[in-house]
């Protein structure tokens, strides 16, 4: 947790032409940090990602990025039908760095293959993106981020719809990315998962809290974040254990062909 921050948000607010969708956001991401972003559906997580990635202009405040930023979008049905291979998708990461008149060439293809090797999909480079499992698709998108040479990666609910072996594999990959100095901003509904990461950002239309999980994930903070959706689960004898019943989040993700190998 040393070095200049990869991302610094100060007094950030955003809207879609109406009332603010998000306000009072104030945090920073250092190299190697995994930051969990918690919040209810419609609480502003995706809005925050849109502002950071430059898709949406902030209504107030500043976003300072010190490197490139990559986005892993939520799985989208239209993308499953797209006529591209895993390699094609990884290669898309190279385009933004090329002048407009240049097509990706041999060097870019080599980088894309290497990135697929890193995420463990070197053998699937030629497979159609839509035919891969949910976890494999997330890893292809991480390969795209690697080709892009992004220092900050935004992951929008990357674990949604994954079975547990796929989720564990993805988790391991995210740990590796952080180990190599990437900053990660990961939106999720799983409080247990976030507890293992470096920091947590709670948002519900405004920033509720930001800090290390141990001191931040308190019942009042979670209640402020999730409102009445929070429930407390009794844990045998050792006192009340925090538990969460998040809003049911459906990804009609019927393309998961089993888990990874």
């Amino acid at each position, binding site marked *: 947790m040393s070095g200049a921050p990869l991302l610094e948000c100060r007094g950030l607010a955003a809207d879609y032409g109406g009332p603010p969708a998000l306000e009072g956001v104030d945090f920073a991401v250092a190299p190697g940090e995994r930051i969990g972003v918690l919040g209810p559906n419609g609480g502003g997580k995706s809005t925050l990602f849109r502002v950071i*990635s*430059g898709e949406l202009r902030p209504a107030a405040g500043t976003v300072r990025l010190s490197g490139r930023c990559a*986005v892993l979008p939520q799985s989208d049905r239209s993308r499953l039908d797209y*006529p591209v291979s895993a390699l094609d998708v990884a290669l898309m990461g190279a385009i933004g760095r090329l002048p407009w008149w240049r097509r990706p060439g041999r060097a870019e293809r080599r980088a894309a293959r290497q990135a697929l090797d890193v995420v463990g999909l070197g053998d699937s480079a030629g497979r159609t993106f839509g035919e891969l499992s949910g976890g494999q698709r997330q890893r292809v998108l991480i390969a795209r981020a690697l080709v892009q040479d992004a220092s900050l990666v935004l992951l929008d609910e990357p674990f949604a719809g994954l079975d547990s072996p796929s989720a564990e594999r993805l988790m391991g990959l995210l740990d590796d990315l952080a180990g190599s100095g990437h900053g990660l901003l990961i939106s999720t509904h799983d409080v247990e998962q976030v507890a293992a990461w470096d920091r947590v950002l709670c948002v519900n239309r405004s920033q509720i809290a930001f800090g290390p999980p141990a001191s931040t994930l308190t019942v009042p903070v979670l209640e402020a974040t999730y409102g009445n959706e929070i429930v407390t689960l009794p844990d045998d004898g050792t006192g009340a254990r925090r538990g969460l019943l998040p809003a049911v989040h459906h990804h009609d993700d019927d393309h998961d062909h089993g888990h990874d190998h």
Partner: protein
Amino acid sequence: MLQTFQLAFVQRGIAEVLLLSVGAGLLGTWIVLRGLAFFSHAVGTAAFPGLVLADGLGFSAALGAFGTAIVFAVVVRALAGPHTDYDSLTAVVLAGFLAVGVILASDVFRSGASIETLLFGSLLVIGSGDLALAALAAGLVVATGLVLGPRWLAHGFDPAGSRAIGLRSPLPDLVLLALIALTTIAALAAIGALLAAALIVVPAATVRLWTRRMPAWQAGSVLLAAVEGVAGIWASVETNAPPGATIAVISGAVFAAALIARRVALPLRGRALAAGAGAALLVAVASGCGGGSGGSAPLDAVATTTQLGDLVRNVGGDRVDVHQILQPNTDPHDYEPRPDDVVATADADVAFTSGDGLDAWMGEVVSQSGGSPAVVDVGASVPVTLPGEDEGEEASRFDPHWWHDPRNAEAAVATIRNALTAADPPGAAAYSANAAAYLAEVRALDRGIAACMATVPADARMLVTDHDAFSYFTERYGITVVGAIIPSQTTQAQPSAGDIARLTDLIEAEGVTAIFPESSLSPKLAEAIARDTGATADYSLYGDTLGPGDSAGATYLGMERANADAMVRGFTGGARGCTIAGIP
């Protein structure tokens, strides 16, 4: 069967369709992938105001259409946000463009009738300008696709994340829309705005069902567009159908077959099934072809309009095979040449045109047919002429509806007789006798109509009709023209509310008892005005075209007699009509 491909105009059509299919097949994949099908359809139709401007200000129609299409693309792109649905945006902008076009045509330029024909095209009359435009579109699409293709692909894959990936400029997308505009305009000359999708969108959508990668998809789409285009031209010549529509039918049928095969059958068997269905379709289309005409008369003649065909048949008799291009009740402005017309022109000894801008397209048919018939402009030699009313570049010097004065028909008969005699000297006696007999009937018609009109008091002879096609008739028989419902000569223009109010006041003030809709146009407007003023709209007139074979207006003589009858009935409140001895 293969000799079809030896015809010069067919070869030019095939060259055009092959050039077009390069741009169309490649762009088609991007259009399907990026959800731009409606945009590509709309951008051709949106060219209408550009065509009006080009006509009114006197620059090339292709330039006007392309300029407007580019502006259309820029406006649509400028209004689009990252999440905008291109379809609804396109619809909004299209409505605006069409509205501007109608206002320009109706109120600013009083456009001539030729404009809407530019939205239609024909693969049978392809000029070198059309070929050049198609080649330009193909070259630009190939070159630009090589450079920008990866960006289009990445943006379509993840539109929301494209900024994060470094695709910040809206330029690649704008270039894509502009290329779609250029290719659509190039296709306009070949198959028209309404059917351009058959070449641009449908082949790509068909191949999409069977491919999983861009390179295969693009190669397949180009190939399929080319095959469907060539097959369409060939089938249209064999069946004498309009080639644009034939291509649309074939590509639609192949798409349906591919879809069914994809849904129903196993992948491999399905491919065979689709190929089989396609082949069966081609055979079915081919077997519909009839034999050649093979006439045995000494002379082959082509006549453009229905009334001209009737005059030539009467003078030519058995010695002349007449191929008449326009059919009854079709507006000469909506004409699209059919393969038979071009073939007949290529083989003809004489071609008769009506002249004064009414059938200016015939010059193109003659030059593209590769034949060398003697072209006779019958309208140029008529003795009675009235000034044309159109303004602008396409204006005609004289009102082209000359046949409504029987004295002009007499002169036309003489012109036709002389032309036939020059082309076939041994038939001179026959043509003279036929012409003399027919002239007697035309003179009887003239006298008969004059006698009928004399029974109506002069101040009751007041004519209100759709648009002013009857000046020769009214001048000849002393009829006062009170007004026309469509103030401009193009049927595409729309009268304003003020125009209609003025006409309604005039009809009431003058005590007009009848409004006469033209038989080949929709009578709705005339009926509405009749309802408001208490006049009748029950009597229709034959203006630009003869009626079908079983109607009173099936011949020239019948047409003029029926018009006189309708007018006398209208003027006299139905008390009497007009019958002329010896004329049906």
